[in-house]
């Protein structure tokens, strides 16, 4: 997994969710995105689905896949890398 892709995913999260006052470095790569991690909510989750498609051209097809993909930044980057192979 390239650090460049992880960085891009973090940047996408900040831009798509319009999170103010946070830089990509402040997002932990392996921390949970929801709940105690970044503290994202239901709408953030759906906005990330849209952002993944717009930014990386990958579609998260269903809830089961989404649960795995949006576990952390690393799992998102893994999914993008896998789909773009």
């Amino acid at each position, binding site marked *: 997994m390239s650090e460049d892709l992880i960085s891009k995913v973090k940047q996408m999260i900040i831009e798509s*969710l*319009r999170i103010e006052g946070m830089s990509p470095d402040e997002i932990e790569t392996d921390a949970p995105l929801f709940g105690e991690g970044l503290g994202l*909510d239901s*709408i*953030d*989750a*759906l906005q990330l689905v*849209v952002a993944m498609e717009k930014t990386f051209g990958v579609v*998260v097809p269903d809830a089961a896949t*989404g649960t795995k993909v949006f576990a952390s930044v690393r799992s998102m980057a893994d999914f993008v890398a896998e789909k773009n192979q």
Partner: protein
Amino acid sequence: MGLYNNISLFFINLFTILVPRPLFPPAAFLWGGLFYLLLAEIRRSVRANLQVVTGRTDVEWLVFSTFYKFSINWCDVMLMMRLKGERLQALINRRSSHRPLDDALAAGNGAILVSPHLGNWELGGLGLADLGYRINVLTFREPDEKVNQMREKVRMERNIGFIYVDRNDTSPLAIIEAVNALRRNEILCLLGERDGSSSTVAVSFFGRCTELPAGAAYLSMASGAPVIPVFVPLEGYRYATLMEEPIFFSGRHGQHADAIKEGIARLAGVFERYISRYPDQWYNFFDFWKIRPGGSSSEPQAKG
């Protein structure tokens, strides 16, 4: 009402095959009257709802009319399952402009059509699909699996997609397939005033604090698709398909709640206008606001 099962639908369908549509009203008068007389608990719930909606105490004629028009509605629902093209469109007498929908699709983010349980909402979806719009219905599963199969068959024949929502699933990703449909610039149809989902927001609805579903707002905010209130009331012998101005939801991380509440309150205001205009076509056969002492508060099951 307990009509939504396989056996009831079989007999209603048989009736609509054997009996021409001009005879639906007198038959509905008899059947609606029978249900009105026999179903006392439901009758009281409808009465309580109509008293809130109209602000009057004497609503008995409207209560009866609700049973009557619901009977007509079911006959028409079963009839139109077999109709396409001109014969289907002939059920519609008056159409408002599709401009809000066409504008939304031109923007490329899809559109979310939301109706209350008012009139013949199923006809709205079938009519748009018949005109070539790509429709997806966001719905709960019915307890009777044969009813689900029947609905799926009818919708697949008309290229209407269906996305089932688990009413107990609190995961934010439960409606991910709906987001993907909007990303494909398709139309989502859902019913928007019954508290049957896990995500609701409290707004004023007919002067009472009411929990209304927030799913449409979530989808709009995530995708950029507008929420367009739609209504298909019976006017005389045929239906009107009416489309209101779109409601857009937007807000940054941490500010979603206020934007959702404001937008859903606007949606509730539009619903109020139409329900007030067609009170006897608002088909909620349970105590909507749970205001009756010991009254029925069951059946918050959205049907779509």
